[in-house]
């Protein structure tokens, strides 16, 4: 079954056709890679799917029309995204960044802060424990009490992914998750993505690193100039001349 399907999606900025009639469908429990040169419209596609931009076309997520919903409602449906330029909350600590994420926290309701303090405390304890585990996985647990503003670019990238993981979403959109991350850790994260996929989570991943993306993806979509140019299994995509030309063209 498709967890996400996008039909004839369009988004124009003035004369720039950032996304120009794209249709894609992603099956539950798979990893879809989204590749394409700079300016192809990949990030705009993410913004449309996650509700941060309004476009024309139809988006169905888990059988719900989401193209008119605001970002937080889409997130509550179980879809979480990361940003290409990481948006760490720099004035909060790393562990606060993570602890913010989980949904339905009792302590986020003012009356529960007053009326059910024990429940709030207990939940905080669980969330803190979970955030420790996730930080450990991403190998940044020593930074838990640092302000996120003190992190390097690559560490912020990890923080963002770690924060998204705190939600246990059914689908994750990752915008260039490996950019600026050291190769060993990148491999570890790839492995983790595959494990989560085997547990039923769905991924849509934008990535420039073709070997890395072909390794983790079940299917790949290739975009150029706002259009889907090719879609298929990684092996197929790698054989496509047009894809290779766009990618290799610049490099000779």
């Amino acid at each position, binding site marked *: 079954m498709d967890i996400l399907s996008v039909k004839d999606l369009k988004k124009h900025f003035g004369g720039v056709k950032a996304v120009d009639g794209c249709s894609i469908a992603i099956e539950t429990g798979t990893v879809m890679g989204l590749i394409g040169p700079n300016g192809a419209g990949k990030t705009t596609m993410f913004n449309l799917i996650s509700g941060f931009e309004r476009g024309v076309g139809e988006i169905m997520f888990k059988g719900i029309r989401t193209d008119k919903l605001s970002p937080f409602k889409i997130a509550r449906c179980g879809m979480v995204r990361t940003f290409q330029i990481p948006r760490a909350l720099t004035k909060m600590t790393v562990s606060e960044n993570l602890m913010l994420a989980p949904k339905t926290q*009792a302590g986020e309701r003012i009356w529960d802060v007053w009326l059910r303090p024990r429940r709030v405390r207990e939940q905080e304890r669980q969330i803190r424990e979970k955030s420790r585990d996730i930080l450990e996985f991403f190998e940044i647990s020593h930074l838990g009490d640092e302000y996120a503003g003190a992190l390097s670019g690559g560490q912020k990238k990890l923080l963002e992914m770690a924060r998204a993981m705190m939600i246990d979403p059914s689908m994750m959109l990752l915008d260039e998750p490996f950019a600026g991350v050291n190769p060993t850790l990148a491999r570890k994260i790839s492995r983790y993505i595959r494990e989560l996929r085997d547990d039923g989570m769905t991924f849509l991943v934008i990535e420039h690193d073709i070997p890395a993306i072909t390794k983790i993806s079940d299917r790949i979509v290739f975009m150029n100039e706002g259009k889907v140019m090719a879609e298929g299994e990684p092996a197929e995509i790698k054989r496509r001349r047009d894809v290779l030309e766009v990618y290799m063209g610049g490099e000779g």
Partner: protein
Amino acid sequence: MIEYVDTLLPYITTILLISSIYAIFSLGLNLEWGFTGIINFGHVAFLAIGAYTTVMFNMSGFPLFLSVIAGIVLSGFFGLLLGIPTLRLREDYLAIVTIGFSEVLRFILLNEQWLTRGPFGIHGFERPLQDVIPYQHYNTFLLILYLVILAIIYLSLERLVRSPWGRVLKSIREDEAVPSALGKNVFWYRLQSLMIGSAIAGLAGAMLAFYISYIDPNTFKPIETFHAWIIIILGGTASNKGTIVGALVFCTFLSVTQFTNRFLPFTAHQMGAFRMIVIGLLLMLLMMYKPEGIFGKKEELALSD
């Protein structure tokens, strides 16, 4: 010596009374700006709503305590009304709309004489336990009462901003795209912050009315909003402790400089302007050498980036 104490004590009591009222008023704004990043330039409107509602309810026969509650609730409700159409606006528009709101409200208070007695103001209303407390001790009593209220407000706010609820506010303050992407209803949280901040200002309004036992529309000019801004910037944005200290420093300064008048060749009017110039200079120095304020955290400075 005794004489000296006799005049000094009431004087200190007065400063502390004014400070506690300003502290509570500013704590409301600190929740909105310091913790949520809402630019509210019309905070004084809620001071006015709190004061007028309390006084008018009481004069139409409601018990004093219920009148104060009405003032608090109505201030919060007006915060909601103001927030619904405006909190989606960009920050600078919000600043303009809120200051407009407070001025429109002041003109309504001035002109709707059938309701508010307009420029003549209202006096002769009841004050808490005025029949029980001997007149010469009344201010001391009021001070103890106000310090207790201040402590309750402070502790409640501390609890709130340290809760997961406060964590969401702080995330909104920095970058609302993040909490949105994580499924938090940013608009609703900003609305809650504005409502609570306004309700607290409403309480301060009732306290102000009891203290000066007279209110008129010109008590609630926009300058009062900016006094609260000065206080939270001075004390350290997003620090409740800093806000209280800021209020004390600010009110002491205002009060003490009323005496230096004698030593300076200024008229009372010029002195008022001179004080503001000094405060402006002090704030500029503070911004240059300790921009996070007395108690603020540098890492959380709301103005940075």
